[in-house]
């Protein structure tokens, strides 16, 4: 109820009571970054209650993956978080490899790290492009998309597609890197820091940006942990949890990179943590490229990875293994597995239960965006309605991730 001091009438102080207005920021709305519906109770401009309604992009991933072989699951994993597809592929493939005790050669692990980090930069660029677009600044979108196009060209060079890659195989990779990829990536690494300075010039000192994001939507450390927030949003609230450092996977322990974190926990901190994270990812890619040594890219165990094409003409055994893998796939042992990894939005892990058949019995994806979305309510309460848009943008939920 807003009680506004009004000039006292003859009957003393008069107060105006108003009912909270229920507004529906529906699934088709430019600021909800996808099909998210928020039912907001407004008292004037102040948000009194906010309840997210999700499920408008529910695709039944987990049910469908129970009817696909393990190798076919790779095509499903990168369509959940379509901005950071490689992180989902990597998480899924690592889980299945842990199930099978596959030995992935070192070169394949390095290529996977390079592609995942480049994809993290592309995801953060989309975050900046649309995040600041919500604030009304149109030009940063075109700047960041220009860089993102260069990154998508790199992915197209390797996997043939710009998004939804099917490049990771269980036990290694589909095929080796083309030669042009390494000079092209080095060229990108050389010019990208200058681009980052351009973005910083665009919005870091802009006082509209500062006044709209400083001290807005503060999520304290306790609330962040209580709402199981993970990823850059948690690091912006003061908890430097990063699974690439906490429990390294796929060779992350060989690279040294810093984990940027802030402790003010507001929208500005979340923007800046992701901004500095891009330079860290670039460092990882550079170190991985320096250490890239020629070698096999697939697990030598014939029951897991396909035999090379050349062998098919000569040995009958390779043809049998090839046929076995292509039609039915492998049969992992009966057990459950979970490998936590770090995607651009937070902790991501595939909990796979296998019953010894060629299809997973149950695949549960621990998705960062669902937990991050729940933290939207404490961030927006008693804030202004316009700041809710900034909170959604700064928590960066991807609705394909949330609704799975």
């Amino acid at each position, binding site marked *: 109820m*807003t009680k*506004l*001091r*009004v000039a006292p009438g003859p009957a003393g102080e008069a107060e*105006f009571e*108003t*009912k909270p*207005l*229920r507004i*529906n*920021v*529906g*699934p*088709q*709305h430019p600021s909800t970054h996808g099909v998210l*519906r928020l039912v907001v109770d407004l*008292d*004037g*401009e*102040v948000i009194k209650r906010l309840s997210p309604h999700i499920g408008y992009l529910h695709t039944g991933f987990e049910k469908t993956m129970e009817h696909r072989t393990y190798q076919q699951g790779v095509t499903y994993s990168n369509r959940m978080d379509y901005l950071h597809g490689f992180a989902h592929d990597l998480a899924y493939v690592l889980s299945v490899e842990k199930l099978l005790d596959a030995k992935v050669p070192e070169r394949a692990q390095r290529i996977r790290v390079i592609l995942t980090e480049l994809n993290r930069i592309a995801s953060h660029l989309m975050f900046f492009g649309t995040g600041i677009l919500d604030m009304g600044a149109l030009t940063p979108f075109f700047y960041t998309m220009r860089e993102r196009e260069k990154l998508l060209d790199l992915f197209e060079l390797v996997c043939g597609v710009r998004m939804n890659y099917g490049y990771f195989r269980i036990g290694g990779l589909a095929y080796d890197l083309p030669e042009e990829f390494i000079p092209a990536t080095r060229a990108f690494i050389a010019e990208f820091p200058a681009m980052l300075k351009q973005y910083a010039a665009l919005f870091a000192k802009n006082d509209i940006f500062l006044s709209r994001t400083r001290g807005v939507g503060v999520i304290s450390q306790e609330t962040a942990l209580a709402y199981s927030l993970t990823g850059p949003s948690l690091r912006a609230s003061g908890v430097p949890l990063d699974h690439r450092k906490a429990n390294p996977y796929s060779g992350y322990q060989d690279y040294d990179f810093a984990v940027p974190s802030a402790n003010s926990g507001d929208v500005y901190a979340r923007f800046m943590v992701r901004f500095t994270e891009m330079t860290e990812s670039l460092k990882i890619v550079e170190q991985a490229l320096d250490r890239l040594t020629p070698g096999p890219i697939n697990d030598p165990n014939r029951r897991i990875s396909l035999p090379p094409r050349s062998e098919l003409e000569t040995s009958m055994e390779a043809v049998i293994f090839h046929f076995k893998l292509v039609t039915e796939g492998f049969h992992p042992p009966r057990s459950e597995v979970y490998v936590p990894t770090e995607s651009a939005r937070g902790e991501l892990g595939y909990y796979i239960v296998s019953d010894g058949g060629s299809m997973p019995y149950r695949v549960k994806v621990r998705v960062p965006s669902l937990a991050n979305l729940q933290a939207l309510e404490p961030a927006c309460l*008693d804030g*202004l309605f316009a700041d809710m848009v900034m909170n959604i943008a700064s928590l960066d939920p991807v609705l394909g991730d949330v609704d799975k």
Partner: protein
Amino acid sequence: MMFLAAGLIGALALLVGALLGPKRGTADKLAAYESGIPTESTARERFPVHFYLVAMIFIPFDIEVALLVPLAVRFNVDPQFLFWQALIFIAILSVGYVYILKRGVLNWK
């Protein structure tokens, strides 16, 4: 004469559009748009008086800017004179602005 012609052309364009244009106002199309969800309540509800006050403030300050524009296009006058004139005009209005700040109309919480 020129204003008459301009007004006529504007009115003509609207008139022809309204008369000749086909109209298919089905029930769904005319329903209120609320991002794809059927509306529960009408928009005619009591809203806080704050919005009304902000609208009131907007009118004088918008006119103030509108009145500053003719100053900018006067070229055959000594710019110093124009500058001081604009300053006086703005000073008068800033008294109202200070009153509004004191009254606390602009902060929303």
